[in-house]
């Protein structure tokens, strides 16, 4: 399954490390759907960052209520975003990655936070542990395959 990188604006001058005159920055995002494992409730996000540097998979906390997910007690768990610590909750949910041809669907316990992260974070626990991912930087796309740890069909 392949996903093209997605762009966002560079506001102001691009940094010297970018191509001169660059107006966009590109990141390895993929669209992801989060569902309640049993009910027919879901939300679709166009930009989920495949973030190999993140220990956790993190969604906005308000989805717990919106989807009717049951929070799992996890006292003391926190996420630090731009220097500020936010409490993190956890819940079992179902996830779908699809390119319109193939589909990966799995259940996992992931994190939920009020941290104002401007995208979904697909980190190691709950997501990347189950996949082998190759990033094609020059051509700006990523290729993802499920591995033996994948917890779905």
């Amino acid at each position: 399954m392949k996903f093209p990188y997605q762009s966002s604006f560079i506001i102001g001058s691009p940094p010297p490390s970018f191509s001169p005159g660059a107006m966009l920055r590109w990141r390895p995002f993929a669209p992801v759907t989060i569902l309640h494992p049993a009910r027919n409730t879901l939300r679709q996000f166009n930009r989920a960052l495949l973030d190999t540097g993140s220990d956790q998979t993190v969604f906005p906390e308000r989805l717990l209520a919106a989807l009717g997910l049951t929070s799992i007690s996890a006292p003391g768990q926190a996420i630090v975003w731009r220097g500020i610590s936010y409490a993190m909750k956890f819940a079992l949910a179902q996830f779908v990655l699809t390119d319109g041809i193939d589909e990966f669907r799995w259940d996992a316990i992931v994190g939920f936070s009020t941290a104002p992260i401007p995208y979904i974070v697909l980190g190691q626990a709950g997501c990347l542990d189950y996949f082998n991912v190759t990033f094609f930087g020059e051509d700006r796309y990523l290729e993802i395959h499920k591995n033996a740890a994948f917890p779905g069909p």
Partner: protein
Amino acid sequence: MNVQAFMKNRNLFPQDDLLQYLGQWVAFDEFGKSILAAAVTLEQLETTLAEDKIDPQTVHFEYIAGPDDDAFQFSPETKHEVSLPK
């Protein structure tokens, strides 16, 4: 839902038309051709969708990075807050 059609349309969405949404969450229609609603927070966006009687399960949420977000971003750091013995 046709993901390929959505992504194609979303990628063709005029960048200039996104400028008015910098720093906001937006809800794209299921085809990626139009923005149905926008708000500063996801909570406000869902409220707006409800007021407009738009099913939030049919839209695609996306945050349009604004000036306050225009910085190099790193992975969030997770931790287990514990009290260490003194």
